[in-house]
């Protein structure tokens, strides 16, 4: 899966939690989940669980803590996929 495909998949995962539709439309690697998309911080854990399910990976607590923006999420997904 290339990066563009991963971003598309991630986009569909975060969609239900997003409060800022405009930032969502312009989602890029630099997008921050809380600041830009205005996702409720409590929902970040749901995003992580949905990512686990969609990519069939397990995200440890330390990685989950870092998963605050698209860039970090992509790195984590990539590294976990390569571990599989």
């Amino acid at each position, binding site marked *: 899966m290339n990066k563009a495909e991963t971003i598309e998949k991630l986009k569909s995962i975060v969609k*239900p939690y997003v409060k800022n539709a405009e930032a969502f439309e312009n989602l890029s690697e630099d997008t921050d989940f809380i600041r830009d998309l205005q996702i409720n911080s409590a929902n970040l854990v749901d995003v992580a669980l949905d990512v686990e399910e969609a990519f069939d990976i397990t995200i440890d607590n330390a990685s989950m803590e870092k998963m605050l923006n698209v860039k970090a999420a992509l790195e984590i997904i990539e590294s976990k996929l390569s571990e599989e």
Partner: protein
Amino acid sequence: MKKRVVITGLGVCAPNGIGIAEFLDAIRSGKSGIRFDEQLADLQFSCQISAKPQITDEIKKQYFTELELRNFDADGILYGVIAGMQAWKDANLPSNPEETDFDSGTIFGSGTSGIGKFRESIYKIDDKNVRRLGSTAVAQTMVSGVSAYLGGKLALGNIVTTNSSACTTGAEAILMAYDRIVSGQAKRMLAGSTSDSGPYIWGGFDAMRVCTFKHNDDPEKGSRPMSATASGFVPGAGAGALLLEDLDSALERGALIYAEVLGGNVNSGGQRGEGSMTAPNPIAVQKCISDALKNAGIEGKDIDAINGHLTATSKDSLEIENWTKALDRKGDDFPYINSLKSTVGHCLSGAGSVESVAAVLQVKHGFVFPNSNCEDLHPEISELVSSEKIPTQLIEKQIDYLAKASFGFGDVNGCVIFSRYLTE
């Protein structure tokens, strides 16, 4: 001078109707919300009939966001939020307010919360998968979940809490909210209560053999309060909500007034005398009713109608006896009395509020709704009270004063006095 408290909004999520219009039609016509329950049958319950609000996905979407409905499994919160938001809207208060309203709060009772979610969580935890519970397991299973959800949706800034006192919960919530307004600490209080539904709530009662098992083939005949052939209650669930408001605030807003909350009383029998965890102490029940009258500034002779607790167990005769003693009235002199449980079963922690909504509608519109399934009045009851006072047909009649009582496990009692709103 003591503040007057009026009701300016109603909402209900009952087994025989969602929303006030549907519910009003249902109670006037005696429409039953009791149905055969396949799930209870599959689980080999003795009682295989139940009364649940019929909530479609369409209705859910009117009150909850798509995100809120993700992994949502908390019936009690669902019913409570629907009823609470209806009452708020019915009172013509702003929907989705921007600013916190420090004059408005809620006391919304419940017996448990999110029992479905709780069950799912337990399975995950035992499977060593606590990390996958998600972010809403707490909000759905905390007993104050219903008041917390409502507080957020309505921007409530006064007290936001949940009370719990078994089947007295709803009546107690109304009186706690009333006190909050009388004492000048709030202008508006959303008072109500709710109950989860399903086998995990009802199982304990089935095990106690207090639910009827004789009517699995004819559900609508199953709930028989005051009948000689009453054989236990029908488990139910639902929520009722009443918007209580300081009279001055209501008049200022030009709000429609359904009725006045004149006062009431809650007490406990202390599980002494004939009282126990599961049985009422009659002395306490009578005192609760007479203290409620005193608190409301009226006498037993003033009461036009009673909405009883009357669950369709062997305790119905005792309840009627308690009313005759507390009001010092019997035979032809006894007020009209009815029990909503004949059509909606026993909604447990939701019962007091669902039934109070029915009581207030009777006061507002001047009628006594018919009792179902008590054509064969229990002889102990007909000895105390003239059968005409237990109507099986709708009676159109002005109701000036109505007493609503609920009694619960733990030997707890609640009695609310509603009156027609009179300007003087």
